């Protein structure tokens, strides 16, 4: 086993040489070919972007490079030599360090302990050596690494810096960053881009995985586009340096989807707004060790309106959604639904009055994976007639209802008795949406509705959200995807550390200005213009 805490960052490979490669790699999972005969080379001294939408195969490639999976066909190469990376240990030993999309730090350990994790259990951690090294890294890359802090207390952005620091402590040739900007503000993402550049200049091979086109252009030297498991094409250094952002984005879209329809901001017909349906006044909830407390949250949503809530993940979005739905107790403030005070009403009562909540956690909270689709459609109405009479189940009525829902929302499922866990993410989402919209829905709260879906389902979901609003629903759209908010919302509020600071009027025709304004608010700066 390597002595992880070595002190040099030198790359034995000449700059520009191939650090890591895939040669005709294929990987299959039950029912799907995740990676199909892909060959590509990652060179030192470059930031190489792997671009593709959800499901294109990027995570699988990362998994193989990190030693979590083996290719079914083909092989990997390191420094030109073929290798089999049988475990994360071997991957690390080959100089490949991976920062995954979800933080892979142990929250109850200190930062220092997380840095030395993975070393043999009989050894003593070399504290002095690591301390010295960290000071160097902090200077060189501007990383913040508080060695004695409890890791779980830090923000996600700070934890990411620690993961990068951990990668740099080891003898790295290759640094892989998987969807690393999803937890960052626009400014934070730019800082990360800067860091990647500096690392590449030092001779590291940096692999940046993303599905965001502008980041691919801004941070990458070379872009490989993945489409449904295949390598659809590459944009190399030379080409990239000659293209403007718009040209590059066009080319990326062409490779990803085969058309040259760019992601132009969809201009949707404006909607008439009706009466205020949801009124939230100075809402506050109690916080806990790992949970943000809400304070002073106030806003209104009218019929036909989509109010967006933007913010970095973990600033209270989930808590706000739960407080509105009745799953979280409120310590101050009020919630009114069409004039009726529901601040202390139960989940069931709010639902009956028309407040619906579509959670972001489809499988772990929104549904019971091993129950059938039918049971899941009535999960929030257990015991309620006509599906139950005197507490006894009426299976025929439930199936009929489920079949109707499957029809109306085009859910792809073998039958209504299939366990919902067998369906794809997009189809589960459709079932949940159908469930929330059944009966008399008046206000719908969406939390990250398109997270993890592929492009087609994302577009369909967004269209549906728009249509619901058109039909008169009041919609609260909580999302970490700025593009989505700019496309759909009438007004956008920003939540920062549990407070809703300001609400902006949305202008989809000027997306980059909106981005900047919202980005500023996300880090607590004052907006450039007056607010709505």
């Amino acid at each position: 086993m390597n002595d992880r805490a070595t002190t040099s960052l030198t790359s034995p490979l000449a700059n520009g040489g191939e650090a890591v490669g895939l040669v005709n790699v294929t990987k299959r999972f039950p029912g799907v070919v995740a990676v199909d005969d892909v060959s590509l080379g990652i060179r030192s001294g470059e930031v190489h972007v792997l671009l593709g939408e959800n499901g294109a195969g990027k995570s699988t490639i990362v998994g193989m490079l990190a030693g979590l999976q083996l290719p079914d066909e083909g092989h990997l190469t390191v420094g030109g030599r073929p290798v089999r990376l049988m475990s994360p240990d071997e991957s690390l030993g080959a100089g490949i360090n991976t920062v995954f999309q979800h933080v892979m730090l142990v929250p109850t350990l200190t930062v220092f302990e997380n840095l030395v994790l993975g070393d043999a259990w009989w050894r003593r951690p070399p504290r002095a050596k690591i301390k010295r090294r960290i000071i160097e890294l902090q200077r060189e890359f501007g990383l913040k690494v508080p060695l004695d802090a409890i890791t779980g207390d830090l923000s996600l952005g700070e934890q990411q810096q620690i993961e990068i620091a951990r990668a740099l402590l080891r003898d790295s040739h290759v640094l892989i960053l998987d969807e690393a900007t999803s937890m960052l503000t626009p400014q934070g993402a730019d800082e990360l881009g800067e860091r990647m550049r500096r690392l590449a200049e030092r001779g590291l091979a940096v692999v940046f995985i993303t599905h965001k086109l502008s980041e691919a252009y801004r941070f990458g030297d070379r872009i490989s586009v993945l489409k449904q498991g295949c390598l659809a094409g590459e944009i190399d250094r030379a080409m990239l340096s000659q293209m403007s952002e718009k040209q590059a984005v066009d080319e990326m879209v062409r490779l990803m989807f085969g058309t040259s329809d760019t992601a132009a901001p969809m201009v949707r017909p404006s909607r008439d707004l009706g009466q205020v349906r949801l009124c939230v006044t100075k809402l506050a909830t109690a916080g806990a060790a790992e949970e943000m407390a809400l304070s002073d949250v106030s806003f209104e949503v009218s019929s036909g309106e989509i109010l967006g809530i933007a913010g970095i993940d973990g600033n209270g979005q989930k808590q706000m959604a739960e407080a509105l739905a009745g799953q979280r107790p409120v310590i101050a403030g009020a919630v009114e639904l069409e004039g009726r005070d529901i601040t202390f009403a139960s989940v069931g009562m709010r639902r009956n009055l028309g407040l619906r909540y579509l959670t972001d956690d489809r499988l772990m909270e929104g549904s019971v994976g091993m129950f059938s689709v039918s049971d899941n459609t009535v999960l929030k109405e257990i015991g309620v007639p006509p599906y139950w009479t005197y507490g006894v189940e009426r299976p025929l009525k439930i199936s009929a209802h489920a079949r109707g829902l499957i029809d109306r929302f085009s859910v792809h499922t073998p039958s209504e008795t299939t366990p919902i866990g067998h369906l794809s993410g997009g189809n589960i989402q459709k079932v949940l949406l159908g469930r929330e919209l059944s009966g008399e829905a008046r206000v719908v709260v969406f939390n990250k509705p398109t997270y993890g879906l592929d492009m087609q389902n994302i577009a369909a979901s967004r269209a549906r959200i728009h249509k619901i609003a058109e039909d008169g629903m009041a919609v609260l759209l909580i999302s970490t995807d700025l593009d989505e908010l700019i496309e759909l919302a009438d007004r956008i509020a920003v939540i920062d550390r549990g407070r809703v600071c300001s609400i902006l009027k949305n202008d989809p025709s000027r997306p980059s200005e909106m981005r900047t304004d919202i980005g500023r608010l996300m880090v607590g700066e004052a907006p450039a213009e007056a607010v709505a």
Partner: protein
Amino acid sequence: MSVSGTQETQSTKESANGPLGEARHVRFLFLTIGPIIAALITSGLVLVAFGINPITYYTFVMQKGLFSGLGLEQTLTRMAPLLFLAAGLIVSFRAGIWNLGIDGQFLLGAVASAALAPALLGVVQGWLMLLLGFALAALVGAIWSILPALLRAYQGVNEIITTLMMTFLGVSLANVLVKLIFLDPDTTVPQTRTLPVVDRLPRLFDTTISSGLIWALGAVLLVHLVMTRTAFGLKLRTVGANPLAAAHAGLSVPRLTTAVFALSAGFAGLAGASEILGVNGNVPADWNPAYGLMVIPLVFLARFHGVGSIVLVFFYSALLIGSESAARRVGVPQDFTLVLVATLLIFLGLAEWLDHRRRKGSG
């Protein structure tokens, strides 16, 4: 909950076919009969290692437990407390709760009914006395589960430790009650006052089978129906399958959790009452048949299904009766049944794991 730690094998209304397209029946056999046969063979090998012929042993046990008139009656009588316990465990496991306190709840229920019934003799009618005895036993059993229930429901304290501790406490408390408070002064052996045979639960027709069996069968079937066909049952199953989803759906998880404990422990108390009011008539000091732990594997093997549990409890009872006799005649201690049940549990887990692997591998 499942032995293999996976979620899939817990039966939904329609379990998918195996990967080779074989019928559900084949897969069902593999998952249920397979482990039984494997367990019989492995335990048989253990007997061989001790110089006992397993065929002789098994046939003897089956003869004594099933094929002799008296043995069959004893088997059916023995089923009663086990079935009540199974009912309680089905409720508990389907709701995702590990009620390992059933032995303590059983004993205290037994003591409660043993104390009340003789005291009511002559004061109220026979059937009322029995009814009250059962009711008190259920109540006492339920009360004994309050502490673990509240700790789990409102503080999130792991119920495995709390229920285990309550079992230890319950066994000692039962002894204290028998030796100090409800002691029968007229006998030399320390025990509670004996309920005369004529006043106990009536026998079925001309046999020696206690009618407690009928009530116990009813209990298991009732529990099964409630869990699979009613709103209450679905609520409990939701809490057991995914507490987060249950909260999201507006169910009160703490209240349902407490209800599960009360029901499960109540059935355990009924089991104790049926043993006293139907068979023994009194509780001797230091008595603890520890039926609870043995019923757990049976309920798992039956996948928490009511009829399945009844069938398995029947065969297990036959095994118990037969092995009691075999201990004297063939020289194999009754504890052999522990080995059999343990191997059954392990092979059940392996069968589920194999099944899970095959289904994953072919999607």
